[in-house]
């Protein structure tokens, strides 16, 4: 079953004072299925965060359609089944870790105090933040804030979770812990929509990946499918392909893949 469907989704930003327009997304069409981890790759300004924001109705599309759980994204009825961790998220710094989870848990629809407290205990334990629960979050490190944000996104047991740079600022051990959590969530049938600039992270846990550039969908498919074409190439062959100016799609794909595909040495 397709959890997320977009059809010819476009977003154009324009300035009130100038005629300059920016196409953040161009006719973006894709689907994300239930029970998979879907990755978004692309350079800065590719449209990854814009796509997530349109899907969450934080930003509105210029044209095209987007559906989550079969419902239009503009209705907020499906939002109790969704968790979200924005990039550079900011929690009210006068709250403690426990209060942050309580606040966002209630906003997510968890009204039963007993159930909410139980989940808070569980996720603080999972993230290793139990002894910091009564500490004001302004004293938290970046990694701790990221873990708290991740806990917040999972608190209401959502079926679909959007994560925008979830391992940003987290140490390697913390990243491994987060990857394990995401893999466990997938095993439970949850769907995760992951936006990350760390190609190694995406390769390790994503089932499918979409590569974006300047608002366009360049390639979509499984990580294996995307890399298989290039695994047999030598470094020299890849450089030769770039030297003879392959079409823009191949150029971007090659540049991205060069960072992590184990290309054979000459």
């Amino acid at each position, binding site marked *: 079953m397709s959890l997320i469907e977009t059809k010819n989704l476009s977003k154009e930003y324009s300035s009130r004072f100038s005629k300059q327009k920016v196409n953040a997304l161009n006719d973006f069409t894709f689907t994300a299925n239930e029970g998979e981890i879907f990755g978004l790759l692309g350079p800065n300004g590719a449209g990854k965060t814009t796509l997530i924001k349109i899907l969450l109705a934080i930003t509105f599309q210029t044209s095209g359609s987007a559906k989550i759980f079969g419902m239009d994204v503009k209705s*907020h009825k499906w939002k109790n089944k969704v968790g979200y961790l924005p990039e550079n998220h900011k929690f009210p710094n006068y709250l403690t870790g426990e209060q942050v989870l309580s606040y966002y848990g209630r906003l997510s629809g968890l009204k039963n105090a007993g159930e909410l407290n139980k989940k808070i205990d569980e996720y603080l334990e999972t993230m290793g933040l139990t002894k910091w629960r009564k500490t004001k979050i302004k004293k938290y490190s970046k990694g701790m804030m990221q873990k708290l944000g991740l806990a917040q996104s999972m608190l209401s047991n959502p079926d679909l979770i959007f994560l925008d740079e979830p391992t940003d600022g987290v140490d390697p051990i913390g990243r491994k812990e987060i990857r394990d959590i995401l893999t466990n969530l997938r095993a439970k049938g949850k769907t995760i929509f992951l936006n990350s600039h760390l190609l190694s992270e995406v390769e390790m846990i994503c089932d499918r990946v979409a590569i974006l550039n300047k608002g366009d969908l360049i390639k979509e498919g499984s990580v294996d499918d995307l890399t298989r074409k290039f695994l047999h190439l030598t470094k020299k062959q890849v450089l030769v392909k770039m030297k003879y100016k392959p079409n823009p799609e191949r150029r971007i794909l090659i540049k991205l893949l060069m960072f992590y595909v184990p290309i054979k040495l000459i």
Partner: protein
Amino acid sequence: MLTIIKNTFREALAKKIFIGYYIFYAIVVILMLFAVNLDTVEGVISMTDVKQSVNLVEKGFLDISWALIVFFSLVSTASFIPSMLEKGTIDLLISKPVSRFTILLSKYLGAVLFMFLSMVFLLGSIWLILSAKSGYWDFQFLIAIPLITLAFAVMYSINVFIGLTTQSTIISILVNFFLIFVLCPILSIREGLIFTFVKNTGVQFVFNFLYWVFPKPGEIKDITSSILVGKKIDFWSTSINMEAGDFTASWMALITSLIFCIALFSYSTYYFSKKDY
């Protein structure tokens, strides 16, 4: 909605400026406790004189402090909307199963409720002290609590609008300062002062139009003072007799201020619901 209102309270209490206000309010209350002497023991002052004295103190307090209380409350709450709209905060709020209208209304009501409770503390304490000291329990003074809260609520709708459109705390404060201390007072005395010198009917029309459109926090204070001293309040229009130093308040000033508040908040809600974040 209650979750966001509760968080707005926490936000207010976390701001040191509110602690400063409460300390200031407490000092005012303590001064009232020791400075005011209204003694009816042994027939020193007759009850009628006590009643008049109490009304005088109450009216005097409101006349001096009304604008300041409303303005400083607006200053301390001016950052609520801009801080809610910060990147990383607003994204998370809107992603929750709560409508944008509920988010904005909850923030607004949270600030108004906080103001109401602050006034219960300040004006309620002053009323208790005056009543205990004088023996005259003037329950009409308590009407000042909801009316000053109403004046705040009307002006806070401007904070909400400016916060949404500019995301600037400073602009909110400056606009409110201009309205409370400059424009609204000038508009309220336009007939007695400006129209004496300006005879052009077109200009007079513009002043009258601005008067009826903009909120009237000063007139809400006049309504409160009139209730305290048992003075008649006209329905349609205020009038000021500059020579006698007398004024007549009007209910229409309150009604038009409320209409302004509702209209501006409605537009703010529409704006917020359509904006990309």
